[in-house]
């Protein structure tokens, strides 16, 4: 674990970088968690620091962003504090001018915002993803953002932080979500290529995080041939390479319309594309494509069937049921708050465990693409 116990270690003092904040807040004798973080229609708000964590609407003055997925990282805020990787992902996706100002907060560094100490800690979700720890008057709250516990070759693993209030995501918080080991899922893809060497394998994967992780996992399984990527993947794959993740030989999956003869070069090959692209006419240009999809939702066969997915790969960047519940046990907070996802089921589990839990009913973190 990296505990860099130095305030304002990076760059100029936060007060100048991270917008302006109000004068010292009034101190109550009784501190309630809601005084430090509270759900609002714009997202989780921190009154003493006057900032939002992962605001669900664009255009707040100050935002602390847990990671670069579009339901958490929106463009158009006044100031954004995030890990360097998240800030880079945001500029790749939204352009350099995605926010008025930005402040780098590497993992472990403590940034003082008003009276509040803010620290970003690895969440194991995608490159740069962080849990947000806020401390104020002896009260510690941790917001997980999105997270997972299992190994991911493209990002730092989740770290457990003791806290008073643990604010957990709940995307896959139903006991039916028990994700299998990743190597087994990748093996299914490679077995299918052997079984159907004449068919292109179109693998849908979210462009940021999932795509690069899948490619890396395929490499780790010993596959060294060229992997073809949809145009929408290129900039983010380049970013991963820049940040030190070797993705092996990649080439654009471009196909001139009607050039059937040329399309044959994709037979038996892996093509990674955004999930929505596999349902377009673009996909039909490939030879008899096997439509695959890498997502935690693929755990549910009915869901795969309804989506026309022939080869579902259960590869999730979110914690499954066991990871969620075991993490709460490990962190052992005084109170569990549940943000987006199946807060009803996780709250019920907490009740059975004799834990205090509170569903926040936060809206806006719906994963538009399945992760």
């Amino acid at each position, binding site marked *: 674990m990296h505990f860099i116990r130095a305030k304002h270690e990076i760059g100029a003092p936060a007060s100048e970088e991270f917008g302006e904040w109000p004068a010292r807040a009034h101190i109550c004798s009784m501190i309630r968690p809601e005084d430090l973080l509270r759900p609002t229609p714009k997202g989780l708000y921190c009154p003493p620091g006057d900032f939002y964590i992962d605001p669900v609407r664009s255009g707040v003055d100050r935002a602390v962003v847990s990671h670069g997925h579009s339901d958490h990282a929106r463009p158009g805020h006044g100031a954004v504090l995030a890990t360097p990787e998240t800030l880079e992902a945001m500029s790749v996706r939204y352009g350099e001018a995605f926010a008025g100002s930005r402040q780098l907060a590497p993992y472990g560094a403590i940034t003082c915002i008003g009276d509040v100490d803010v620290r970003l800690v690895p969440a194991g979700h995608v490159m740069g993803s962080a849990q947000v720890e806020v401390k104020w008057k002896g009260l510690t709250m941790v917001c997980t953002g999105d997270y997972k516990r299992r190994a991911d070759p493209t990002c730092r693993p989740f770290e457990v932080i003791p806290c008073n209030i643990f604010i957990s995501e709940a995307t896959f918080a*139903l*006991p039916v979500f028990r994700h299998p080991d990743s190597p087994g899922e990748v093996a299914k893809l490679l077995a299918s290529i052997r079984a159907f060497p004449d068919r292109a394998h179109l693998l849908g994967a979210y462009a940021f995080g999932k795509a690069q992780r899948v490619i890396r996992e395929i490499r780790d399984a010993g596959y060294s041939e060229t992997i073809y990527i949809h145009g929408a993947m290129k900039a983010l794959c380049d970013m991963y390479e820049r940040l030190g993740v070797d993705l092996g030989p990649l080439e654009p999956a471009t196909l001139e319309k009607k050039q059937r003869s040329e399309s044959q070069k994709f037979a038996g090959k892996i093509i990674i594309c955004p999930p929505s692209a596999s349902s377009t006419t673009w996909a039909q240009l490939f030879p008899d494509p096997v439509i695959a999809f890498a997502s935690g939702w693929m755990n549910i066969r009915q869901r795969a069937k*309804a*989506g*026309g997915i022939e*080869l579902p790969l259960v590869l999730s960047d979110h914690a499954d049921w066991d990871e969620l519940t075991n993490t709460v046990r490990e962190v052992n907070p005084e109170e569990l708050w549940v943000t987006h996802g199946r807060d009803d*089921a996780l709250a019920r589990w907490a009740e059975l465990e004799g834990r205090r839990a509170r569903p926040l009913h936060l809206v806006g973190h719906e994963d538009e693409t399945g992760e």
Partner: protein
Amino acid sequence: MQAFAALLERLVLTPSRNAKLQLICDYLRHTSDPSRGWALAAITGDLDIPSVKPAAIRELVVSRVDPILFNLSYKYVGDLAETISLLWPPRPGANRAPDLAEVIETLMESTKAQGVKLVEGWLDALDSAGRWALLKFVTGGLRVGVSARLARQAAADFGKVDVAEIEELWHGMAPPYLGLFAWLEGSAPKPVSSALALFRSPMLAHPLLSKAERLDAHDLNPSLISPADFAAEWKWDGVRVQLVSDKSVRRLYTRNGDDISKAFPDLLEAADFDAALDGELLVRTPEGGVASFNELQQRLNRKTVSPKQMIDRPAMLRAYDILQEGSEDLRPCSFHDRRRRLERFVVSLDTNRIDLSPLVPFSGAMELEKLRRSPPTRDIEGVMLKRWDAPYLAGRPAGLWYKWKRDAFLIDAVLMYAQRGHGKRSRFYSDFTFGVWRSTPEGDELAPVGKAYFGFTDRELVMLDKYVRDHTIERFGPVRSVTANKHQGLVLEVAFEGLQRSPRHKSGLAMRFPRIHRIRWDKPARDADRMEALESLLAV
């Protein structure tokens, strides 16, 4: 169990027939006896094990999982077997995972009560895919989108033999089919069946094609048909079957060799003889006429049949051919000789459930053409032509039998709704509901009359899909409604085989086998057909 579960999972999600065949074939190649035989039986529906009620398994699960969490999960997943397989809590120290043969052989020797206990232990030992496969076959109904016929075809591909050979053997064999696999692998001779009332691979006809469609030399030119070479008979609108009675054993098979005896005990009872007949399965109305294909379909879809159904819709066989009489195999004889034997045979029967499909006398090609175009009744699909000198040969031999169908009916209808297809097609709007004009007090309106999801090329599908997306006016779930009025709308030329009154359809009509014949990009929607045109077809 792992490999079998992986196979089922893949089959459920694979739309293409060829890919399914390849998956099953690969499985048979990489799996040893007796597991592969049990797997084949599970897929063809020939597995006879005590079934476990879904309710009993539900009881098991709520004894281990909080009922509220279970209900939240079940509501989300929607399928009981899948929910349970996913949320079954792991039990540390469970037994090793059983293989498929072990599961099936143990179940076969156990009672229903023991079955539940066994299943519980296996659920602990298996992973979620294995649990799903287990629950699928112990609760009955594998439903992985593979017909028995397709599974037998895969076995034939595996052994590089003709599927007809397997079909003839099939009903004389029992799982796990060790003799069959030994033969398919080339390590033993073809098994000889001693079972009674076996299926005989049927003789099938080639379509008689119009001039433009004829390519092969053996495609018969209709103008050359002469009564000296060919016998003609009606092609009845029922289901082609084989009725076999062999000493005490009686069976009714479809032309694919599926045993449908259980659904037609009334017909089997009438088969009080020692012979094998080829014919058309029909059902009668209480008045004695032939009931519609719809009515037959409803009896076909049942596993068992009620006494009321047998009275309201009694089954009958209209005999085309005789393949065996007593111990004599008649298949090598000419059609001419078999027909004489058949006529004598049917006359001798003491039942009104089996009659003779009459020969249709004709003087020449012209007359036959007329008969085929306008057959005397609606339950006739066209004419069959059979060479007088042809023996009865399995499969579709060239030059001997022809079917000459009545022309399809055509109407111009307007596209009203489109729905996403299934499988590979789920990315396209490929199920099209169409309507025709009907007058109402408020003026003309479109009334939906049918739904078609094939007939178009891949290219046309892409164009139709684009049309739907560009002209959507409303969406509800997977369905879109498109602009369809007198000024704007897409006309589809729809071909269909028949039309019947049907109270179950909103329009009161049921179309048989509708498909999109042509897309009339050129035709204004206001010029599409009217309901009266369809009504007039009903009167035929």
